[in-house]
């Protein structure tokens, strides 16, 4: 009965109800859109990092600290006995890295050389292109960000100087076999990829690796004397940190939007309690308790949000559909910042569970905001209400 009366009152309110529903719905559309953008971006970034660098996990040599360039020189160790079968079976992908100096067009630049087996299927990295050596010049692959920063292009020949494990310098000429659109910044920026065997020769470190990419999850949590498992949280710590920062901004924006929507509902409710005093008195005379009258008004306010939640997928459909198919465009220059997930349009995926939680939170806010002005009803004398008397 109360629900039916609340619905009828909302319909009777006409355009005022419509404005409230549309305002709340617009807020929800923006929230869903933002939520989907962050979610899809992070998912894309994580997928790309996994496809291009992390696989199903990583076993990293203990001396290697990606944040400390001075550690790169000693970031290698012989492949431990217990991991050899995994390497042979193709379940573990060894990568050997070393700091290097490169000389593109006579300029001198620092870089990291990474050696990867030409034949592997753990990463989507097209390492087979590294086996196409036809002369003394070593074929290498670089990413587009690296090509841009070094001004190297496909077919360019340049020199690489690497120190072997005994401290002696080795130099080779390399040719850029292909410039790859590598979406994982850590596999692109400052990195030159070459065949693992050649890399081991250059370093004088046969059977060594700096890290293993896991192609089989059974190696997760494996720890050896020289290698330790890098779990998802450690590997994606930067990404998570960035997401946390973004989330803070997101929460601020949400708070502002929700505040505006709640003002609209609060205003409507306050006006309703003021304008409908006589109705409140009548309901009391008919036998409604004050609690029931408060419930009626609170329900009316909450129904605005419920209807807005229903209207959100309908009103937002064109926008949601467009971004799920065409995707959020890559902003020019963003790839240079080393932000993962910004190399291709972000096609939106809508995280239903998270969106439902947002809706639920908004609904709870609405119930509170709808109830707030109705506290006056509890203090209202039914006789004064019937007389339309203002306190």
């Amino acid at each position, binding site marked *: *009965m109360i629900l039916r009366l609340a619905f009828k009152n909302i319909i009777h309110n006409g355009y005022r109800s419509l404005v409230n529903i549309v305002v709340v719905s617009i807020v929800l559309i923006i929230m869903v859109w933002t939520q989907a953008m962050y979610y899809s971006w992070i998912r894309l970034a994580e997928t790309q990092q996994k496809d291009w660098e992390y696989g199903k996990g990583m076993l990293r040599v203990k001396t290697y600290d990606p944040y400390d360039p001075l550690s790169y020189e000693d970031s290698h160790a012989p492949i431990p006995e217990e991991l050899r079968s995994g390497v042979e079976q193709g379940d573990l992908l060894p990568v050997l890295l070393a700091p290097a100096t490169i000389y593109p067009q006579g300029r001198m630049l620092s870089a990291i050389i990474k050696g990867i087996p030409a034949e592997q299927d753990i990463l989507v990295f097209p390492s087979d292109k590294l086996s196409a050596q036809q002369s003394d010049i070593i074929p290498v692959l670089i990413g587009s960000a690296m090509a841009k920063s070094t001004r190297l292009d496909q077919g360019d020949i340049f020199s690489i100087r690497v120190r072997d494990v005994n401290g002696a310098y080795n130099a080779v000429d390399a040719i850029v076999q292909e410039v790859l659109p590598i979406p994982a910044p850590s596999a692109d920026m400052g990195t030159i990829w070459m065949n693992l065997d050649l890399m081991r020769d250059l370093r004088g470190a046969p059977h060594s690796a700096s890290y293993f990419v896991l192609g089989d999850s059974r190696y997760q949590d494996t720890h050896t004397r020289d290698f330790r498992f890098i779990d998802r949280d450690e590997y994606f710590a930067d990404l998570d940190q960035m997401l946390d920062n973004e989330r803070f901004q997101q929460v601020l924006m949400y708070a502002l939007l929700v505040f505006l929507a709640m003002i609209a509902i609060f205003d409507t409710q306050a006006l309703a309690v003021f304008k409908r005093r006589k*109705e409140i008195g009548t309901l009391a005379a008919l036998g409604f308790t004050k609690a029931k009258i408060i419930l009626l008004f609170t329900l009316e306010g909450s129904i605005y949000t419920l209807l807005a939640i229903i209207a959100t997928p309908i009103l937002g459909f064109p926008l949601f559909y467009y971004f799920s198919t065409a995707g959020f465009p890559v902003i020019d220059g963003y790839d240079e910042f080393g932000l993962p997930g910004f190399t291709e349009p972000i096609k939106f995926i809508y995280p239903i569970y998270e969106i439902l939680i947002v809706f639920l939170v908004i609904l709870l806010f609405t119930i509170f905001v709808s109830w707030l002005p109705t506290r006056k009803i509890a203090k209202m004398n039914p006789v004064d209400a019937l007389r339309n008397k203002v306190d």
Partner: protein
Amino acid sequence: MKEIVANITNMSKSFPTGEGDFWALKNINLSFERGEFSGFVGPSGSGKTTLLNILGSLDTPSKGEVEVLGNQIHKINQLQAARLRSRHIGFIFQTYNLLPVYNVYENVEFPLLLMKMDANKRDKMVKEAIEWVGLSDKVKSRPNQLSGGQCQRVAIARAMVKKPDLVLADEPTANLDTENSLNILDTMFKLNRELSTTFIFSTHDPKVIDYLKRVIRLRDGEVASDDPAPGI
């Protein structure tokens, strides 16, 4: 001896004002039997509506005792008062006070919904009440589609549908022309006779006074006279 529906003993009611308490009702002693068709008559400010509101448990006395259908109005809590109103008392207001979002049927049905009556019985009683007031052809109409007289008839049907023990009518004809006033008075008089419902009016309309079987004149919050009247 007839059953006593309401009994007022040494009852006074005051309202706070800037200059101290204003006594709207002073030392009222009255008793109402089942089936009465009586009314408080007096000029504006004589305390008619206040007395009616106290009898309807919408207000409480400041002094004295008021018992309505076995409920001590001076002691009753909000929940008990709401229950008393929803089951035993019908209200008819000067300005009809219909719910604007409901049609005639829904307005009349409303008190029965509050009583959680089952649908079949409810439907029968609503149709019966609408028939009493002669609005069977207007069941789907909203209050804004009805005339003042029709609205007041809906209000009467709403007050009577649950067959209450007591109906309190506050200036029910004040907004109506003579024809409509007589029409609704006839209806109420008929229902009073047929259902033995106690009607208590607050009025200064001579047309209503003509119908009353008991006229209680109030002056400055006191009972000036309490006389039986012939009724119409």
